[in-house]
């Protein structure tokens, strides 16, 4: 836990010099310098789009830098593919976990390591004993013979880290490792990281939550717009100064939600149970009502029935048991923008049309009224600030933020009654995320659309606890298929977070 001793004695274990990387017109990294030393936990922070993930990609050989020098323990290295990074002693734990779901833990750990005999054997005994030893050292334990797809997200992350440690890297790189963990798991996880650093490794990690940064990092490097704006010891920082460095201006604390005046009942789920994609009971006996003019928040770690609940509320699937009452039209913002919300290769008008093929206004018998759809799309883009020159560009050409604005606007066109949103701000930068949140808030409060109708109801289903706390009038937690109400006087991070993860590691039952 020291960063003074190592610094003077040996060269930095990782040294990046003037790294540049462009993706098309976007400059992701604009001459980044970085030094990290063995024995330290070094946090790389910044807004979405600041270049953190690109930088980690450069270090792990996934992204090839256009210019710049990378030195590991003082020696320049070329990292053109992940193999090169492994060979240089860099181990990467990706944000999107990179395990083979259909293989066992043991096979995943052994994958890609050539032990001896030209790969003509598979020394499982050897792998098993080393894995046991690693588990003991780090306290990260997991059954080696379980197939990975049966593990919870938290357990998979443990496997991912063990897999990386198995190769004994000098430098450990972790991309937003806490995003899949509940608040209570984070503390435990940080002590593992500190332990790894104290063995003389370099731990480089990307974080975006300020309190976590200050809790774990010895040193902090702040990226903004592809440049390093600050690098220094974390002791000298507080949350205010760090936030200013990240965003480049002071952030206003968000105001607490205005009390709602719920109107007529819109949704009623009674005793709803449903199966997930693998036939397991994903929802169990769920009861829920939603009224006009309120935002209902459903917090929880993904994979606890979120998808099934969202699809049932959206009217896209029916439950196996129970009764569902929904309004005629429901707007839905799915979690996967380019997979479920948009057709990437359709232009924007076609993507708007996708949600409106049932709307009488845009049909004439069996025909679609493309003229009306085109002008409606243009109006929508205007109204919601979708940055695109014409509705004729394809959806994949838009940035994530603009895609989401298009989706939100379209779903409001679809329904003035009810809007279901899953992880609505995931992957967006702060400004775009703000925009989407404001939009949801605004519509649930104002009488939307025509002739002073009652405002619509909103359900936000999210794994981002802060988002749920910030937006919601009423809060529930969805855990292992059960919907638990959070009492009005207990809506704190701690209480809701604890509800999210109670027994989370146990996939059975």
């Amino acid at each position, binding site marked *: 836990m020291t960063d003074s001793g190592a610094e003077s004695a040996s060269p930095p274990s990782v040294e990046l010099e003037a790294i540049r990387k462009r993706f098309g017109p976007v400059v992701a990294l604009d001459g980044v310098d970085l030094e990290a030393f063995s024995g330290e936990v070094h946090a790389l922070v910044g807004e979405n789009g600041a270049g953190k993930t690109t930088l980690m990609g450069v270090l792990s050989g996934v992204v090839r830098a256009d210019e710049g020098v990378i030195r590991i323990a003082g020696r320049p290295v070329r990292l053109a593919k992940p193999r090169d990074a492994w060979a240089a002693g860099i181990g990467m734990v990706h944000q999107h976990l990179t395990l083979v779901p259909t293989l066992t833990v043991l096979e995943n750990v052994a994958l890609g390591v050539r032990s001896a005999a030209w790969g003509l054997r598979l020394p499982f005994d050897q792998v098993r004993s080393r894995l046991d030893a690693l588990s003991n050292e780090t306290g990260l334990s997991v059954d080696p013979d379980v197939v990975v797809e049966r593990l919870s997200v938290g357990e998979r992350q443990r496997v991912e880290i063990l897999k990386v440690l198995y190769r004994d890297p000098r430098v450990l790189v972790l991309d937003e490792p806490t995003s899949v963990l509940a608040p209570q798991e984070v503390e435990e996880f940080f002590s593992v990281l500190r332990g790894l650093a104290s063995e003389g490794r370099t731990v480089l990690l990307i974080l975006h939550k300020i309190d976590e940064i200050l809790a774990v990092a010895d040193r902090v490097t702040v990226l903004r717009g592809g440049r390093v704006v600050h690098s220094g010891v974390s002791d000298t920082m507080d949350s205010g100064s760090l936030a200013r460095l990240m965003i480049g201006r002071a952030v206003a604390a968000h105001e607490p939600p205005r009390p709602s005046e719920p109107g007529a009942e819109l949704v009623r789920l009674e005793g709803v149970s449903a199966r997930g994609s693998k036939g397991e009971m994903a929802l169990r006996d769920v009861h829920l009502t939603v009224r006009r003019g309120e935002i209902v928040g459903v917090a929880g770690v993904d994979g606890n029935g979120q998808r099934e609940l969202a699809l049932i509320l959206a009217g896209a699937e029916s439950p196996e048991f129970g009764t569902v009452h929904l309004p005629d039209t429901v707007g839905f913002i799915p979690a996967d923008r380019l997979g479920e919300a948009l057709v990437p290769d359709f232009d924007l008008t076609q993507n708007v049309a996708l949600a409106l093929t049932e709307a009488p206004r845009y049909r004439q018998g069996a025909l*679609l009224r493309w003229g009306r759809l085109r002008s409606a799309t243009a109006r929508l883009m205007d109204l919601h600030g979708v940055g695109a020159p014409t509705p004729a560009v394809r959806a994949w*050409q838009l940035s994530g933020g*603009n895609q989401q604005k298009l989706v939100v606007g379209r779903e409001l066109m679809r329904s003035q009654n009810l809007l279901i949103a899953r992880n609505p701000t995931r992957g967006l930068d702060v400004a775009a995320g703000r925009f989407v949140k404001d939009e949801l808030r605004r519509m649930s409060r104002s009488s939307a659309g025509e002739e002073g109708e009652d405002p619509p109801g909103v359900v936000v289903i999210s794994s981002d606890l802060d988002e749920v706390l910030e937006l919601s009038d009423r809060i529930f937690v969805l855990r292992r298929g059960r919907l638990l109400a959070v009492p009005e006087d207990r809506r704190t991070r701690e209480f809701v977070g604890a509800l999210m993860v109670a027994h989370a590691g146990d996939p059975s039952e």
Partner: protein
Amino acid sequence: MLTPGTRVNRLLRFGGLGVALAALLITGVVAVGALVAGGYDPGVALGALVRGAVGSPEQFFSVTLVRSVPLILTGLAVALAFRAGVWNIGAEGQLYAGAMAGVWIGLAAGDLPGWIVVPLVLVVASTAGAVWALVPTLMRLRLGVGEVITTILMNFVAIHLVGYMVHGPLQESRGVFPQTDALAAAARLPALIPGTRLHVGFAVAVLLGVALWLVLRGTVFGFRLRAVGQSPAAARITGRIDGKRVILVTFLASGALAGLAGAMEVSGRTFALYEGLSPGWGYTAIAVALLAGLHPMGVVAVGIMFGALEGGAGAMQREAGIPAAWVSGIEALVILAVLAAGQGRKWLVQTRLERGRPAEASVG
């Protein structure tokens, strides 16, 4: 916002035509190279090809356009299916199913007047094609078995069934040759241009091409079909589209089009059914559909072009001694060239995007 530079948009919008032209160029170069390598004189060969395809009105109307009819119809069948993400490799079998059913009803109802028999033949044959497609359709929708292998298997079943029919129940009355009796005049398609062998089937095929184009462009069903083909998940979740229904309808329509092609052959060209009726039109259709960029009007154009190729191939064999079998080699080459050119276009779009100047970009 990544810059939607004008060049990129132009590539995206008109890329299909560019891909087709590039593919033809690649095919031409490789084909000529193969001829030279095989010791043939490419000049003589190509001369024969052109003469055989468009050398005279007789050749053009009675050979090229007549051959284009099954190619257009099966090409439309494949293009429609592929648009919906249905990998129907079974147009060949569906064509044979249509030909069998068409001949059967044509022989059975040959005494009725032509204005009844001919439509009856076409309808029954289309139905048979759809029924032949029903097996792979249900296997996909009910059992989750991919249609690629099942449609191919159904092709072989159809071919052997034809073999059985023309040796057995449907064999000509004298029982000598492995083929059916000839259809009565009433069951034959009328000529489109008197004095040539071109029959009204050609007009039907072209009109169906126009109709499909309008359906895909303007109707709700056409739009849903394209959405299901592009992104089944987005179609289901955002579009609330019943993908299974779309696939069912599309698959059966595809089979019906291929079955219709079979009917046009027996009722418009051969007037009888025999083994080897189709020289693999159902497979050539894949090349036709791909080169056409899965666009119905493109299928019509490419179908005529391939009709010319098939017609010219006969002349090449007669005049230059080049085996006619090389035509399927050329058709395979067309498919590969389309694929290569398509990847080339993607690559161009990518590099154009990457070369766009930072000043044009506004991130966020």
